[in-house]
């Protein structure tokens, strides 16, 4: 398991390569990367992500541990950035490895659903110089009900 909460840019192909290099006896590797939208429309100047240092890492750890309990996965990776992010930049990624694809897919979806509404991050969008906090979508918290 590797969890990284970082300001620095990451290259997802390098991360996937490093993650998969340590794995043995797996048959499935699922990855998801979230990207800051708006690179073509040029409506978004940039995004700022605030987080709760200390709690963020703990909370992600709990979420990943729960995924390990629920699915037979061999390893998991979570990277989530904070700070100022430009359109087109990666925000976060998850990767899961398992013997079979169902476990890898479901665990990755579970991680995504919980990171969205149970990890202490707050996104602010800056559009044409105007700042707006991104409101949580009610379907994000509803999405958790399918795992309960």
């Amino acid at each position, binding site marked *: 398991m590797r969890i990284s909460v970082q300001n620095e840019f990451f290259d997802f192909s390098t991360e996937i390569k490093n993650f998969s290099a340590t794995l043995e006896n797996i048959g499935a590797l699922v990855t998801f990367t979230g990207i800051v939208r708006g690179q073509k429309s040029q409506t978004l100047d940039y995004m700022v992500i605030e987080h*709760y240092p200390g709690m963020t890492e703990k909370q992600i750890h709990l979420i990943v541990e729960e995924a390990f309990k629920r699915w037979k996965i061999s390893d998991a990776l979570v990277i989530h950035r904070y700070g100022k992010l430009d359109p087109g930049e990666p925000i976060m990624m998850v990767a899961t490895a398992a013997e079979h694809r169902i476990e890898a897919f479901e665990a990755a979806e579970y991680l995504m659903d919980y990171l969205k509404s149970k990890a202490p991050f*707050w996104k602010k969008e800056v559009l044409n110089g105007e700042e707006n906090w991104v409101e949580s979508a009610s379907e994000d918290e509803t999405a958790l009900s399918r795992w309960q």
Partner: protein
Amino acid sequence: MVDLIYFSWIRERIGKSGESIETSATTVLELIEELKKKDIRYSEVFSDLGSFRVAINQELADFDASIVEATEIAFFPPMTGG
């Protein structure tokens, strides 16, 4: 003494990222009522319980949770990670 921490628009509207306070409140709800009496910024921010969340000692908590053992209480809007 307990440390209060504010995030996102709660931090912006209260005008500070946190503060240390003395409180006789025993639950989050009692603390919120106490804060609302401080001034209008607090009473506005905490007027709608559906609009924010709370963590006690860096763990998500309910509004009726005890804060007797709390050293750090954070208030923030619903999270928008991912």
